[in-house]
């Protein structure tokens, strides 16, 4: 199996789907001739032309809205929002238009739109270029939201998103761009939306994470293993819909749960996981559920501040160990 980097998996998935379906188009800032600010669209305009791979003027509200118009009239647009922090700029077209059109038209209209964006901290990019917005976006009926944490998931989930007839947001993580993984070289391989994945089996405690949190949880699990504690790491992979059953199954085996997230805890995905696990697996729990999440602040710029903000593997391991040993 060839090795693939996370950013290159984006390029490969886009290239394969643009090749496969002539109704797909790609639009965003700097994605054409420049090849994307993460090299994630390199070569695509050369292969598919400037009518299908379009550099658009800055103005996410306008070009996302235009993509909605394309999706309503026979195309399958893929839009790149280069930083997830730019979602607030285009929320009307995403939330009031793309997400609601099918519903408010009584099922007449479909919006087969894919939005690819890059979020996450850890790169000292500052408060307006480090955010993660899965909790906002995942709470909007009509949108589907996935958060690939590996190159293989990027490719499989992005391809499924493009083929899906609903608006799907693919939230990628800037901190994972250089991550490598062996990925099958198979253009037909897709991953189903809405399915979590157990990244590491374990019997003593369940760590639930997604996106950049998965790498932190796996690192914490290594630390815990050195101390004789086997943590099971569940990667949610999909935020909307949320695969609660996989988490509940795991907790029923381990009896303990820590949710790891890079987004603030308040009204976050962890809160939703905790509510469902408490309801469905209350009798299986041997300890209170914990969340390891950033404090209620924007993501700061300076390296020590940002390190303080994001959950470190040592924080996660300490939290899990306390649950297991007390």
């Amino acid at each position, binding site marked *: 199996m060839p090795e693939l980097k996370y950013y290159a998996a984006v390029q490969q998935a886009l290239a394969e789907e643009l090749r496969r379906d002539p109704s797909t188009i790609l639009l965003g800032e700097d994605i054409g001739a420049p090849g994307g600010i993460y090299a994630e669209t390199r070569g695509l305009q050369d292969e598919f032309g400037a009518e299908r791979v379009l550099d658009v003027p800055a103005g996410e*509200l306008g070009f996302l809205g235009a993509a909605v118009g*394309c999706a*309503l009239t*026979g195309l399958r647009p893929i839009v790149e929002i280069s930083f997830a922090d730019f979602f607030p700029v285009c929320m009307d077209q995403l939330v009031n238009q793309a997400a609601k059109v099918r*519903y408010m038209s009584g099922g007449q209209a479909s919006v087969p739109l894919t939005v690819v964006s890059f979020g996450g901290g850890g790169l000292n990019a500052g408060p307006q270029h480090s955010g993660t917005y899965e909790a906002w976006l995942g709470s909007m009926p*009509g949108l589907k939201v996935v958060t690939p944490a590996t190159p293989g998931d990027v490719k499989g989930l992005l391809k499924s998103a493009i083929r899906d007839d609903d608006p799907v947001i693919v939230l990628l993580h800037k901190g994972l761009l250089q991550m490598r993984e062996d990925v099958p070289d198979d253009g037909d391989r897709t991953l*189903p939306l809405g399915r979590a994945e157990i990244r590491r089996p374990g019997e003593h405690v369940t760590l639930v994470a997604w996106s950049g949190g998965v790498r932190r949880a796996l690192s914490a699990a290594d630390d815990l293993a050195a101390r004789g504690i086997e943590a099971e790491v569940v990667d949610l992979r999909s935020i909307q819909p949320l695969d609660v059953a996989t988490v509940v199954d795991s907790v029923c085996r381990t009896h303990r749960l820590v949710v790891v997230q890079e987004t603030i805890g308040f009204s976050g995905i962890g809160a939703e996981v905790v509510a469902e696990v408490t309801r469905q697996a209350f009798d299986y729990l041997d300890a209170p559920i914990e969340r390891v999440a950033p404090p209620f602040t924007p993501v700061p710029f300076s390296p020590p501040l940002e390190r303080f903000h994001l959950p470190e593997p040592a924080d996660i391991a300490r939290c899990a160990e306390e649950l297991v040993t007390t």
Partner: protein
Amino acid sequence: MSAGSSSATALDGARLDLALALHEQMVRIRRFEERVAELFAAGELPGFVHLSIGQESVAVGVIDLLRESDYITATHRGHGHIIAKGARFHPMIAELMGRATGYCRGKGGSMHIFDVGLGVLGANGILGAGQPIAVGAAFSARLQGRDDVAVTFFGEGASAQGAVHEAMNLAAVWRAPVVFVAEVNGFAELTPYDVHVPIPSLAARGAAYGIPATVVDGLDVLAVRDAAEGCIARAREGGGPSLLEVRTLRWHGHYEGDPQRYRDPAELARRADVDPIAHLVLALREAGVPDDRIASAAERADADLDVAVATARADPLPAPEDALDHVYATPIEPRR
């Protein structure tokens, strides 16, 4: 300007036939809106409605030039645009009544009527949302090798939205086959033009995007149509976007039931002088069209409305659990 004073050229031949067709369409919209006002006052319509009485020449003058496969996006005051594009009365009335048989099965209401088959890509409850969507639809048609165009309606209220600027900019960059129709009716909701628009005419903004712009008086539906003809032909022939400003007047409040304390009674009294239907009727009379033939348009519209209203009244309401349908095209079942 008084009604009838600008009918410079006599109507005859094909021009007379055209005038009769436009009259028929404007009367259909007027009678529909008047019926909606009655139904609303009688408590038969939930929620709220925005009516376009007095503005019929804008929808009719522009949309008369469109084909079924062309696209429009309408406004929150969009009944007229949608009727002009060919929408049927019954599913519209049924939607306004919240019935299961409505255009949107009761999920949208007045501000969200779609008829995808007729190219109606939605009325919209958000000012400035339809313009980017229309630019995309226009671009999409061209990319797919069709010469369909998109027409997008917005008012001076929406002209303050950034999305309208972004849409015009993008349309100009793409040379998209789209016509922006600024339907200037004197108000943004409850606030008059002069309070929120700093220039006498929105058409001046076309130059900022390098797109041609025209202003026309909505009193004369034939003049509106003549002005729109160039815009639509330009779009269809690959000449790119344009901006058409139509000056009109909103007769009713922002919403039905709006007490309109903010309006000058003198302006309300002026409504009869700027009535595009009365203006056209004078011209039809001058051309020798008998009164009973002119009046028959309202009779036909009323007959259609009687059937639509009676049918919609007898139609079922949606089952409560129908509220769960149509969120997704392909719902993902939770893992058991």
